[in-house]
């Protein structure tokens, strides 16, 4: 006669679940602190302020995946994320209290994704690991670098994503498999749910290497094509030349370099008649301001154009006049932009142009 076994139904997470979270967060905290420093070290090696450390960011999520995979109750990953963050704070994380937020965020994401996919297998771990790892970039951006270029954030997130998929998802799943086999604790106690987990893992084992290989290849492909695209088309080193912004009442605010409009270049002859200095008539080659402005589609009600220089000097123009005037050019002078306004007095020939504001 088998007596009914009384289970500890008092709590959603049993004492043992809590302790699993505690010990995993404990080691995770210890190792992540080291990994964090490793990340900083990588940054220094690569000579960038941040980003290179993202290559190892998956190792932070690894522990959360492990806790989720061992306990298999929604909420376990969140608990592990929060606790690990607090432990990291107290064991000397170089991110301070921000790490608690970052780690908690990662836990929540792992929980949500595992809840959505409704299964515990390699693919769901890879998905959860990847997105959770990438989330750390966004959280940090939110906290510190709200103004960083979007492409750069995307690029770093992509590194983190790949790291998360490989180190947290794939690697985590294989370690989980070993640990479940090793049975360091009574896996078959309690609900018996964990026993099924072992079976499931074994059942899925045949296809695992292929899935892993395919996902890795896919990621590498996405990653490298992303990188190529970024450097070929989007990346714009800050030291290439003077840049000017168009903003205000326009449909498409823009940042441009003069070379973007090379095909519209024309030459005009103009004489500068200023109050102090006068430059006799000579040839100037540049891009008509009209072209640049039309490219951004000024809004219907806009009336004025303000041209601003880097030293804060401002001049106002009537927008309609400028749009009809072929004699206003933006030219390159040394390494700055200069406005040539043939039909205007010398005060309107703005040097070191930085910004065009439509109002």
């Amino acid at each position, binding site marked *: 006669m088998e007596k009914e076994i009384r289970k500890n139904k*008092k*709590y959603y997470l049993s*004492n*043992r679940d*809590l*302790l*699993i*979270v*505690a*010990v*995993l967060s*404990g*080691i995770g*905290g*210890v*190792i992540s602190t080291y990994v964090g420093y490793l990340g*900083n*070290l990588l*940054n*220094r090696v690569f000579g*960038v*302020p941040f980003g290179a450390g993202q290559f190892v960011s998956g190792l932070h999520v690894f522990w959360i995946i492990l806790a989720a995979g*061992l306990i298999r109750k929604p909420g376990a990953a969140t*608990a592990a994320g929060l*606790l690990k963050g*607090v*432990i990291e*704070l*107290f*064991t*000397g*994380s*170089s*991110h*301070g*209290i*921000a790490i608690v937020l970052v780690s908690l965020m990662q836990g929540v994401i792992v929980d949500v994704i595992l809840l959505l996919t409704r299964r515990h297998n390699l693919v769901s771990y890879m998905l959860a690991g990847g997105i959770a790892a990438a989330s750390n970039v966004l959280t940090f951006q939110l*906290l*510190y*670098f709200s*103004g*960083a270029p979007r492409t750069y954030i995307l690029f770093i997130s992509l590194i983190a994503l790949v790291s998360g998929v490989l180190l947290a998802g794939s*690697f985590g799943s294989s*370690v989980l498999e*070993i*640990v479940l086999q090793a049975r*360091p*604790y*009574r896996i078959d106690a309690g609900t018996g749910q964990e026993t099924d987990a072992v079976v499931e893992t074994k059942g899925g084992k045949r296809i695992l290497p292929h899935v892993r290989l395919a996902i890795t290849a896919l990621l590498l492909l996405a990653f490298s094509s992303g990188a190529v695209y970024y450097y070929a088309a989007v990346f714009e080193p*800050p*030291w*290439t*030349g*003077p*840049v000017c912004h168009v903003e205000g009442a326009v449909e498409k605010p823009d940042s441009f370099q003069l070379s973007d409009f090379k095909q519209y270049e024309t030459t005009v002859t103009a004489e500068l008649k200023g109050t102090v200095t006068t430059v006799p008539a000579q040839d100037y080659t540049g891009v008509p301001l009209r072209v640049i402005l039309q490219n951004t589609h000024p809004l219907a009600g806009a009336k004025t154009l303000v041209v601003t220089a*880097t*030293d804060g000097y401002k001049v106002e123009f009537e927008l309609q006049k400028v749009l009809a005037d072929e004699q206003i050019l933006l030219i390159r002078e*040394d*390494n700055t932009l200069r406005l040539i306004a043939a039909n205007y007095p010398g005060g309107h020939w703005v040097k070191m142009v*930085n910004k065009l504001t439509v109002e």
Partner: protein
Amino acid sequence: MMFPNRGKRGSFSSTGLKGLFPGLTYVEGASLLHHLHPLVKLVLLICFTLAVFTSPSWQGGLVLFCLLLLSYRMGGLGPGFFVRKLRFIFIFGLMILLVQILWTREGYLLWQLDLGRLHLAVWSGGLCDGLGVVLRFINVIGSSYLFVATTDPNRLAYALMKAGLPYRAGFMLITAMRFIPLFRLELALVKNAQMAKGIELEGLSPRLLIRVVKYLLVPLVVSALSKVDFLTMSMESRAFGLYPTRSYVSAQALSGKDKIALVSIPLGLLLFYCIFS
């Protein structure tokens, strides 16, 4: 000392890598900050962090930074300690500043340099943004570390539990902290075991490197989990989880100073926010 990880056993792991890890942990002391109630300090830390993140300008950041230096003095640690422990943050901050300056071209041109095709320029907007970010960065990390350095995590956990945190959650933190010295020791042991088997981290191919990381983590995880069952039994046999609440031996009532700090500092930070926004 809370974590004498410079102690005989813990230091096992840190030898060789010592210079790298500044060891941002609790520092025993008897200063005003050490004596403040942990919960009060937590509230203050959160207020300060909020102030840092909402402060829109670098001037505000600078004021908060000065406030922080003052607090370090109050914590009996001194600005020198701050600089020594957080040296790497400053290096890091400097690099962020450089990037911000290179990237942002707004405001006034302050300085420029032409090296053939290379064109470097410092704009006032970039400098301000950069300073703002760096100060935000240093302020958050600096204040967090001040909190960690002056707050015994054990006291904090007990204080949180008494303030209403379910005790089973509080003991997760305490138990995790309890095992950290052990995990450090085991980490060192496993590293030694790797070396004794002829595995060296230098000169490994990436493929092998992943394997070695696995060699490091799997024994640690298995060893940690193998303790879970015994720990559960030990704690449950001592009535852990039997009742929804528990009592506590040590009383940690709020002192007068605690109350003053609790009211005045958030008010001060609110005032600060009004001025600088």
